[in-house]
């Protein structure tokens, strides 16, 4: 990971509250990063638990890990907000924002909101199970509130780091940049976990899977990369996901585990990892390689058009950023497909059914006649037209996500509170 700072934008403003080079990373940033890591580890563990053992209680170790993360976030964010609101530290007050009468760093409010959303999702999810049965799918209304909560905690951590980072210099700034990228890596993991069912091995020869991947992922990569200013930011975040999933594919099966629910169609004797990581590392590298060639589009403001409405400041339609988005979006989808599509053939072959690639690890209730168990691709687009249509949507999603990421990233670069 390079530590080169790429100054592609106007230099970050400094102020009288710039921290000294010898200042240390504040405790609440460590706390939020620890909480974020615990939640993501707990989330992975929980899904692995569901795939191996099946039976769920409030007190599973995975749930406790997630709850610990939520409580740690809630406690540290509350201390920070209440300390700032009711304390006498004027400097902290000046470096804070006002939300519903309370004062604190913006990131602390977002983290606290995330923790609250996680708390609200718990009784809602419990009722959901009672009303409609224990869900065996990831995407459901209470789970989405939970995911929003986790996303809130992760983004809150990122913004909290940014608030400090954008006022810091020297080694502290570099350390905070690294922490921001770690936080971004966790966001990528969350994104990929939420897309598990739609990007599985059996769907890798559909345009649908690439469309799903293109929704959101380029946004997170672009936004955090811009905010961090690091040369290889996208590669670093993708590496965190890739490294974590690789290690887990190799480590998780070392622990014993067996199903406690039926129907059991696959003999399972050890904990199951999720899957071999998707090759998002390659589009991430491509985007990082492309970035120096594209940055002038952003800076030059070529073709910038402004619109003016009476009483409002002008707003611009920035061709340069759209050009960047189109180039990056196309590159993302093309490189992703170029690597993942042929690699999927390998993942379906007997050569991948070993501890390295782990395609022989099958969920205990996976029916033997399922595509996954038979190691064959599942077809969604039955005509060329349908395939091309989905592929078009994949490009559109990647372009739009990148464009949003540019706006979001540029905003984050200037967060100072």
């Amino acid at each position, binding site marked *: 990971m390079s530590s080169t700072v790429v100054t592609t934008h106007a230099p970050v403003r400094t102020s009288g509250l710039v921290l000294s080079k010898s200042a240390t990373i504040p405790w609440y940033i460590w706390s939020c990063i620890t909480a974020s890591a615990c939640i993501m580890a707990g989330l992975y563990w929980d899904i692995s638990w569901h795939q191996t053992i099946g039976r769920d209680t409030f007190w599973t170790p995975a749930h406790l890990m997630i709850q610990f993360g939520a409580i740690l976030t809630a406690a540290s964010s509350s201390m920070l907000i209440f300390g700032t609101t009711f304390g006498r530290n004027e400097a902290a007050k000046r470096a804070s924002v006002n939300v*519903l009468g309370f004062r604190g760093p913006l990131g602390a409010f977002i983290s606290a909101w995330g923790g*609250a959303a996680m708390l609200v999702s718990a009784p809602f999810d419990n009722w959901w199970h009672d*009303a409609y049965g224990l869900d*065996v799918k990831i995407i459901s209304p209470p789970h989405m509130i939970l995911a929003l909560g986790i996303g809130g905690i992760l983004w809150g951590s990122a913004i909290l780091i940014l608030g400090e980072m954008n006022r810091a210099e020297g080694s502290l700034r570099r350390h905070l940049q690294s922490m921001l990228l770690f936080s971004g890596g966790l966001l990528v993991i969350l994104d990929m976990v939420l897309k598990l069912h739609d990007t599985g091995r059996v769907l890798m020869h559909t345009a649908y899977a690439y469309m799903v991947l293109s929704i959101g992922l380029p946004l997170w990569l672009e936004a955090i990369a811009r905010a961090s200013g690091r040369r290889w930011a996208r590669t670093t975040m993708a590496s965190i996901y890739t490294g974590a999933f690789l290690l887990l594919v190799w480590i998780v099966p070392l622990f014993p585990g067996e199903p406690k629910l039926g*129907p059991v169609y696959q003999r399972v004797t050890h904990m199951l990892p999720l899957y071999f990581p998707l090759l998002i590392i390659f589009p991430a590298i491509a985007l990082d390689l492309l970035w120096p060639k594209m940055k002038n589009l952003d800076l030059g403001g070529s073709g910038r058009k402004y619109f003016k409405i009476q009483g409002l400041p002008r707003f611009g339609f920035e061709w340069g950023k759209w050009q960047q988005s189109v180039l990056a979006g196309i590159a993302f989808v093309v490189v992703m497909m170029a690597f993942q599509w042929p690699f999927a053939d390998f993942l379906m072959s007997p050569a991948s059914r070993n501890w390295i690639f782990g395609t022989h690890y099958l969920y205990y209730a996976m*029916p033997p006649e399922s595509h996954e168990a038979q190691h064959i691709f599942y077809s969604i687009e039955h005509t060329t037209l349908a395939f091309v249509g989905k592929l078009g949507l994949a490009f559109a999603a990647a372009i739009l996500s990148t464009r949003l990421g540019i706006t979001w990233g540029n905003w984050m670069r200037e967060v100072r509170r």
Partner: protein
Amino acid sequence: MVVQMTMFKRFLLIVLLVLPLASFAHVGSPDIYYDGYAGQYHLLVTIRPPAVIPGVAEIQVRCESSDVNQVEILPLRMVGDNLPPRPDVAERSTGDPQLFTGHLWMMDRGSWKVQVNAYGQHGNAQMAVPVPAVSMNSASMKKTLGGLLGVLGLLLVAGFIGIVGAANREAKLDPEKDPTPWQRRRGLISMGLTTAFMIGVLLFGNKWWGSEASANAKLSYILPHLQASLQAGALQLHLENPNEVSGFTQFGTERPDRLRLDDLDLDHGHLMHLFLVRSDMKSFWHLHPNQIQTAQFTEELPDIPAGHYRIYADIVHKTGFPETEMGEIELPAVAGKGLNGDDSGGAALSAGDKVSELSEGYRMVWERDSAPLKTKQPLWFRFHIEDKNGKLATDLESYMGMAGHAAFIRDDGEVFAHVHPSGSVPMAAAEKAQTAGSTPNSASGMNMAMNHSTPSAAVSFPYGFSQPGDYHIYVQVKRAGHVETGAFLAHVEN
């Protein structure tokens, strides 16, 4: 989403009120009672299936003797090869060492069985109890929970709007600076836009919730209703199949809970056991129509008095999944042929509290104590047949392979259960449960069936009422070549 909760709750309540009290194989009586043998261990198993699938079933195993030290339970699908999950050790009651209880998850709709492993003085042995797993309805949300979630949801929405406002107003400001009037206005505008956005999110969430509830409701079991008509003295029955779900599972395989009408199995030698009960409960008939084509049955009626009849048609699918189709018909007085085969019934049954008069001066006696009947209690309903001198009858025969058949029918017709001495499980399903799935266990299953097929003057049925009300219990035994029907009254309290 939360703002719309009340509206949705009302909708759910209305749905629940208009839904009939549906249940698989039986009507309004979902609990399963099964008396059988695991090797030499005599066990009475009670299973209360969950109201929604996936959900938790309550299991109770009562050992009739004290020779069992440990009981394990595990769920298995009846169809297809599936491996046993790690069994649960049922908890032994401290007050009653012969009672073991536990809970099991039923993860999919369809035909399941609960395997019971008994360990004791005679080694270990197994038996299996079929469990049709279906979602019956959706629970409504309690006011307190709805209110709590509503308040928390509003706080989340308000917090989100406040955060967006702060982000646009002052997040980018140097700490020493205050927001300008324009920055404050920008904060307010962004809060207004976010409010509109959140309303959109809430509306979308509500629609999504409604869509999930609707999809779930489609998977809930619907009590099938048959169409009945009388043509030239023959009852014509057309079955419906509202639960024939199509499509595929998330794994791309055919849904295992699919029900078909071209796969019916013989139960006691018949594809259908039809119960015709006049609304005054005095005319009761147990008939066995013939299938003329898929979903079409016909039955030449015996002499039946006129009246409004309720129809309960028991069928068992080849998967071991039993169903009861309900119907109604207004019958004129039918001058039909006499009863033949296994058909039986009575045109003017007089129900008693403890004694029911049979033919030739014989009587059927319900051996009940004075304790009131309560719901959710596994009970043994014991009867004996005596002659006009009060001596136990000696000429009882097997009736369709069993010592007797009983029908528990609530007087309003909304609860029906067809029960055997082995319990509320159809024999076809019980036999399949011993052999289907991963652990064939035919020996113990047959042992159980043979045990109950031995006719004597006494017959008993394990059963428990699921709902309160006034019931008629019809008990049928075969004596001296013909089937006798005893009728009894039962009042059940909650």
